[in-house]
């Protein structure tokens, strides 16, 4: 029984967390614990994949938790699919951790929470009542918070942890309210009972908004994304990979579970809300990413962009479903889930790569790196594959999923509402723009970090990562390539999920000849990853051969021009900020109030003039600063209540009691 095996796995992970508390300081603890968690996640991954392909929904109830509710677990296609994502990422992160964890300065702060975090994410996916769901959700949040705070002495980590725990609490609170509304006055917190009830349109809209706040804040939807670029880089790199690649997918799951499964039939305008938030996230995320120089922050912001992409898919699915276009809804949801899967692989891979660079050089700032392709060739190769993938270049996986999203967008003229007819193409344009900018962003990331020449001495003497880390990265890169070459199999694997959620699914792709994928009809569009791959491989090989034969035997004298480097100093190379300058000037002037300033030294000072760049985060200034100052104001006013005399406290109780009685007397 798969659900039993999976729950045993979670039990094992929790036991591992307890064991880690006892032995975390020993030297042998790191490899043993990570290997054990990789093994457990492997078992869970296998069980979930088998269940996804050929499984029927199963439920299991434990007499734990609240007395009259208990703890209910359920395993259906949707949770199986997300269990595959979570456990694949978790397994890779554990494998990576075997090597990466050796460099950890405080393993006792990471080892116990790592398996607990994995267990929390898995339990969220299997929960079948609101209480278990929220408990697991909060457990996941707190475990990840503890991991973020692993290196808690750094001031930016403290700030990150503070912002994260605030946003996580607010998100959980929103979900709590959403489930409260769904459960209704009878307090039926089981998902089966919630599914059977039908909320009024107003109530359903409220639940949608609360789910957007709750799941969106965890996923990193603009404008609830502020914690993400702070917290994800602060954690150890394999945890960053999990948080960015996997935990955001748990949030997507929560959104799908609530809005598609529990909430009943959607209204057409729900799609507009989700689409607009998704489009804004995609564009803002990638613009933010372009202006960062911290490697891990770039990746965190890129997560926001991809989450936006996924939410656009979800919004399209909602819109199509509300209007009864089951097939189109199936296409959009497939695209969203496929992209979620791809992004979990790609973002884990890229965070692993940044972790390898961080261990080798001690640097996260791109402007201090450079030329690492010579020192870390295999890491560079894996990261290059990840950059190809996340820039949506064929034949990698993200191309297939983003292409499917655009296919769904192209179906929008069939929608009857003018609101949707207008919004969907606009969001499509936003997506197209953000895909192009993402490509620029990752050209910049790879080029500044791995190409050119080393900018600091530590980088020049960097060493290649250990073989566990490398194997984790290469495995993920292979998965990315395979999913890109054979997207049809992934789409077919997602089929049961879509059938469950929408009630229809995309045509089976395995039967299409030559491994093409045909989302709607052969006459409209088709894509063949294998063909593209073969073409690219062959043309690249032919070009390389031609160059080799024709060019490289000739001895050439180098010209005086020096290949663009007249001075030998590496400072003169293209830097991360200079690469982003054109885009910053075009987009940043309004959205980020970007200003460039030349700081001249005072007369007589021989130091060079510096170009300074000032960016302002408008969302932070407009949305969060007023909230923070309002809370601070109210807290200051309420502070006196902490220092009252006993009599005044008694009087307060007395007055409160009398007031309540008065209300009762008047109101009844």
């Amino acid at each position, binding site marked *: 029984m798969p659900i039993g095996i999976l729950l045993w796995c979670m039990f094992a992970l929790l036991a591992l967390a307890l064991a880690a508390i006892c032995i975390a300081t020993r030297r042998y603890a790191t490899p043993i614990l990570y290997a054990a968690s990789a093994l457990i996640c492997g078992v869970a991954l296998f069980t979930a994949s088998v269940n996804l392909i050929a499984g029927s929904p199963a439920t299991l109830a434990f007499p734990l938790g609240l007395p009259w509710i208990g703890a209910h677990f359920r395993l259906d296609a949707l949770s199986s699919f997300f269990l595959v994502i979570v456990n694949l990422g978790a397994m890779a992160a554990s494998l990576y951790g075997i090597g990466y964890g050796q460099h950890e300065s405080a393993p006792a702060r990471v080892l116990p929470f790592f398996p607990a975090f994995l267990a929390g994410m898995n339990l969220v996916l299997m929960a079948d009542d609101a209480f278990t769901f929220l408990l697991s959700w909060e457990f996941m949040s707190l475990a990840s918070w503890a991991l973020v705070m692993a290196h808690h002495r750094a001031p930016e980590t403290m700030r990150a942890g503070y912002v994260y725990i605030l946003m996580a609490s607010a998100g959980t609170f929103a979900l709590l309210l959403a489930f409260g509304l769904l459960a209704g006055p009878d307090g039926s917190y089981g998902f089966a009972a919630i599914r059977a009830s039908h909320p009024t349109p107003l109530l359903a809209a409220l639940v949608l908004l609360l789910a957007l706040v709750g799941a969106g804040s965890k996923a990193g939807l603009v404008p609830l994304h502020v914690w993400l670029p702070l917290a994800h880089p602060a954690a150890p790199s394999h945890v960053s990979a999990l948080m960015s690649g996997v935990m955001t997918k748990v949030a997507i799951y929560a959104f799908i579970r609530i809005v598609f499964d529990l909430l009943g039939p959607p209204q057409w305008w729900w799609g507009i809300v989700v689409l607009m938030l998704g489009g804004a996230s995609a564009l803002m995320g990638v613009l933010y990413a372009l202006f960062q120089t911290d490697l891990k922050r770039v990746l965190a912001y890129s997560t926001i962009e991809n989450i936006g992409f996924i939410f656009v898919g979800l919004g399209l699915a909602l819109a199509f479903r509300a209007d009864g276009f089951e097939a189109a809804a199936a296409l959009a949801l497939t695209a969203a889930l496929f992209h979620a899967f791809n992004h979990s692989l790609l973002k884990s891979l890229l965070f692993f790569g940044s972790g390898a660079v961080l261990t080798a050089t001690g640097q996260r700032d791109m402007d201090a790196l450079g030329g690492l392709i010579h020192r870390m060739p295999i890491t560079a190769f894996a990261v290059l594959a990840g950059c190809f993938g996340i820039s949506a270049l064929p034949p990698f996986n993200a191309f297939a999923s983003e292409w499917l999203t655009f296919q769904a967008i192209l179906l929008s003229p069939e929608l009857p509402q003018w609101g949707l007819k207008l919004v969907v193409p606009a969001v499509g344009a936003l997506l197209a723009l953000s895909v192009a900018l993402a490509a620029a962003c990752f050209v910049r990331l790879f080029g500044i970090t791995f190409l050119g020449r080393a900018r600091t001495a530590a980088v020049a003497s960097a060493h290649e990562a250990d073989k566990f880390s490398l194997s984790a990265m290469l495995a993920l890169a292979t998965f990315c390539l395979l999913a890109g070459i054979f997207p049809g199999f992934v789409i077919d694997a997602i089929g049961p999920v879509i059938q469950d959620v929408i009630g229809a699914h995309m045509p089976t792709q395995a039967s299409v000849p030559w491994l093409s994928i045909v989302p709607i009809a052969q006459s409209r569009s088709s894509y063949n990853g294998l063909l593209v791959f073969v073409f690219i491989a062959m043309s690249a090989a032919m070009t390389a051969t031609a160059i080799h034969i024709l060019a490289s035997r000739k001895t050439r004298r180098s010209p005086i021009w020096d290949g663009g480097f007249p001075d030998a100093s590496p400072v003169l190379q293209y830097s991360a900020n200079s690469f982003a300058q054109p885009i910053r000037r075009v987009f940043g002037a309004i959205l980020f109030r970007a200003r460039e300033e030349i700081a001249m030294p005072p007369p007589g000072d021989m130091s060079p003039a510096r170009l300074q760049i000032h960016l302002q985060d408008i969302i932070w200034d407009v949305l969060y600063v007023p909230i923070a100052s309002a809370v601070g104001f109210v807290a200051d006013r309420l502070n006196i209540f902490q*220092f009252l*005399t*006993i*009599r005044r406290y*008694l*009087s307060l*109780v*007395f007055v409160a*009691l*009398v007031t309540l*009685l*008065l209300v*009762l*007397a008047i109101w*009844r």
Partner: protein
Amino acid sequence: MHGIDFDIAHLLAGSLVLVSFMMLYQDRLYALLNIYALHAVVLSLSVGWQAHIQDAPHLFITASIALLFKAIFIPIVLHRMIVKLGIHREIEAVGSIGLTMLVGIGLVGLSLAVMLKVTAGADLVAREDIAFALSVVLLGLLIMVTRRNAVSQVVGFMSLENGLVLAATGAKGMPLVVEISVAFSVLIAFIVIGIFLFRIRERFDTVDVRALDRFRGEQR
């Protein structure tokens, strides 16, 4: 259940409220303690009458607990404590008596208005009893709020407990456990607050709780 049974139950519960009013304006500690003893005697009479008309012999136990502990034991011990603390001559400012009484009358009116509405379908005796009990509870709170001396706050708290006992016994079928627990909670509160009083006294040479505020640097 009409006639003399109901009338006497009503009379006793009403007397309890009346005695609570008497406690409100006592500015000497001895007088306050004596009135509290009277309060407990009226309570035990009321509970005893309830035991008689409800035909529930276990309520007699509650009545005797009230008589022995609350009407005799606790007042005697508090008397001694006051002598030991040397505050038996102190006169406590209770604020304007007229105003306190008016507030008390308002509270009784409020509790009657609330309880008679809320318990519309319930047994007549229980309704009256619970309404009076709520008045006694509110008056006990009012005593606690208007006093500065820790001993009189303790007395106010215990008269509040008496109101709870009245409520618990007024309804039919309330198990004995409730009464015992209430009695014990009073006892424990009495012991704890007694010890607390001596600790305050040891440290500050007074049982005026303003001393605590001064100690926290909060002169108000």
